[in-house]
């Protein structure tokens, strides 16, 4: 039989990167957190499905990582006796997974939820609020689709976002609007939080960022700098510029949403 013609890419650094991202961030940082309330709950059906799925994902992580870290993966494969399910030693388990295109909808939903939680967390950081503190939110401006995402995953969302109440109407107090995927959610912080004071703090941060951004812009227009500086330095400046701009945009949007 003729060997299937293929061209190797040899981008093992890329393979390492995507697997690392998946394992560290998607699996460890988010999925396990999603599982905790499910495992604490009493729904037998949900429990069984989640135990099965998480074990399946875990096994597949070992499969993806085996060529990179063979000892570790083999050890865990044996620990969990995955051979009983896959009927193969890890060293001979192929990389096939069946793609489920119908899962795309759920994927987008959870992705949005993750963005929302991330946004709540980073707003707390910007406002100097302890990350562990609970807040109330209002979802009155959300469309029904997004509302149902929150309702369907209410326990998980409350736990990860540190949210105590999810209200459907705006409260009569100062709130901060965050925009996630084009949809607006209002966050209500403790009454003790002096928003005006925070506003000043953020304003001074904004000024500081403006100064830094202008500094880099001037540098990057300077022909003799571009000519003489090593490429790494120039790239570092360019990257800093992008990062500062993103930060600035975020702070400005918070500033705009603080009502007086």
């Amino acid at each position: 039989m003729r060997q299937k013609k293929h061209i190797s890419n040899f981008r093992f650094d890329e393979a390492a990167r995507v697997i690392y991202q998946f394992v560290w961030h998607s699996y460890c940082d988010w999925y396990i957190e999603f599982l905790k309330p499910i495992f604490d709950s009493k729904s037998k059906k949900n429990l069984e499905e989640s135990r099965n799925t998480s074990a399946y994902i875990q096994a597949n992580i070992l499969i993806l990582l085996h060529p990179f870290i063979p000892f570790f993966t083999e050890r865990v494969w044996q620990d969990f006796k995955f051979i009983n399910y896959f009927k193969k030693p890890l060293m001979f388990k192929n990389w096939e997974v069946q793609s489920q295109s119908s899962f795309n909808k759920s994927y987008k939903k959870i992705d949005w939820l993750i963005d929302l939680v991330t946004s709540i967390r980073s707003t707390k950081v910007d406002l100097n609020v302890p990350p562990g503190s609970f807040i109330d939110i209002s979802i009155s401006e959300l469309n029904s689709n997004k509302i149902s995402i929150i309702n369907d995953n209410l326990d998980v969302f409350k736990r990860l976002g540190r949210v105590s109440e999810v209200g459907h109407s705006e409260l009569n107090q100062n709130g901060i609007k965050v925009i996630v995927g084009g949809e607006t959610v209002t966050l209500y912080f403790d009454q003790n939080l002096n928003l005006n004071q925070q506003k000043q703090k953020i304003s001074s941060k904004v000024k500081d960022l403006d100064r830094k951004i202008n500094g880099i812009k001037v540098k990057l227009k300077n022909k003799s700098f571009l000519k003489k500086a090593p490429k790494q330095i120039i790239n570092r400046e360019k990257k800093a510029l992008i990062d500062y701009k993103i930060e600035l945009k975020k702070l400005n949007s918070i500033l705009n949403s603080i009502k007086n």
Partner: protein
Amino acid sequence: MQNPNYDHHTIEKEIYDYWEKNKFFKPNKSKKKYFSIVIPPPNVTGSLHMGHALNNSLQDLLVRFHRMNEYETLWQPGTDHAGIATQAIVEKKLSEKGINKNKLGRDNFIKEVWKWKKESGDQILNQLKKLGCSCDWSRNRFTMDKDLSEAVTKTFVLLYKKKIIYKDTKLVNWDTKLETAISDLEVEQKEVQSNLYYIKYKIIGEDSFITIATTRPETMLGDTAVAVNPKDERYRSYVGKEIKVPIIERKVKIIADKFVSMEQGSGALKVTPAHDFNDFEIGKRHKLKSISIFEKNGKLNNTVPKELIGLDRFVARDVIIKTLKENNLLEKIENIKNTVPFGDRSNSIIEPLLTEQWFADAKFLAKKAIHVVKKKKTIFFPHNWSKTYFQWMFNIQPWCISRQLWWGHRIPAWYSKDKKIFVAENEQEANKIAKKYYKKNVELKRDEDVLDTWFSSALWPFATLGWPKKTYELKRFYPTSVLVTGFDIIFFWVARMMMMGTHLIQKEPFSKVYVHALVRDEKGQKMSKSKGNVIDPLDIIKKYGADALRFTLISMAAPGRDVKLSEDRVKGYRNFLNKIWNANKFSKINNCKLSKKLNIKKTKLDVNKWIFFELVKTNFEAKKAYIKF
């Protein structure tokens, strides 16, 4: 909890034993596709360094991926006998015990080498196992094994019959300490401080001199011309005249040759065809005599004036300079920086020497090797290496394949008393041919020399698979799928395998050549003992485990970029393992098990669908790194 983190110490050995015991590294016969790699054979004298660790982590990654995905997969391991390196080590060991190699004699010396190999050789193979390499150790080969030696002899006889291998008298890099020809690879060009001597040569029949500049004044004893550039106005009128070489008072001609640089030194060049590669070419163009002035040990021979015979080359230099000074023939001495060739084993200055050696017609062999790369039967990654490959192949010189050593494949050539050469696969055969030629039994003496180590390494991809026998492995796994190599040996090794493979098997030895970069320290500096910035892979494996080292090296191996390694990086990836370890503990506590009832299609919860979708994406992206359909 007793053991909060992953502990690699006991685990790695246990796991490796389990793999070996179950013979998991042997190819699994499959009707479908195959995947094969031959290891770049480490020197039998070697110990694992970071370069090996990167090279072999990448190979193992590829091998494991394809083995998992149902390719019939072979990773062919082995070691190289490393002629000169091994001989030097054993020689040194013996001399520490007060034993002289020459007194011991050839056969006993070789026995000592084998003894050394049994005791201390191959330690690198155990180190590769520590790294997790899944080679089929049952097929382990050594370039001096019986099978491989037979393949070497057969190749020599075959190429000799086709007149691709021949004997010739040529200039070679000569190591006067080890008394052998050595390859370009074994020559290290070092920048040193030297004296540049300006010496006056008297023009015969005139009262004037031409000054020549040289860093090696002793070679003037072998001068057979003085050359100037034909465009050089200063000397135009002298061309064709005769000039006297000082000390030996030899009359030589002043010739014009475009090679001579008008800017360098005085613009006039002493020509010593027997001891300088450029001069040798000038000599050929002008049909000059070549006069060798050195013995094989670097002492002056009997072509020179009596008082100089037997002097070491550097002693002779001092004597000559003194004499020139006394005769007012030394114009001046300049202190300059120049590059001087040193033997990398002996650290002795290399002397180009005119000797009779065996050569292979590399120009001829290169033709097919160029063709297969042009036709993309062999593809280089990153692609620009093929340009470098072509450049070198188009300028290839005859390959000097004989070495004046004892440890190696002895050249299968026998000589009769009247110097007739009989090349055969063994002595019996040689006697038979000689008998036929002389019509009677004659006494034959075997060539004393051995072959360049790269000659046997050039056969590695097919000799290890069984060639010249028609084995299953040769049929199934050749051409091998990919060669993973550092760029430093593309010419010395990769090119030679390409030449031999395309000639002897009529097929390229690899479909792809993946060229990886160097491992440097975190600041991008080359690791070296003198800088004290060497990171020893075995230390790292002990401290953080083989997996952490592998993951670090592989994630940093972007094409064409050097790996800037630091211990902190390894520590970081070690944390990654701990993170997964803890996630696994979470699964265990919560009783996560795979049951036969799992039906992914029927998944209900958004989060479970989400993670599954993420897995599919990751699986697809990761596969793309290995294979692009």
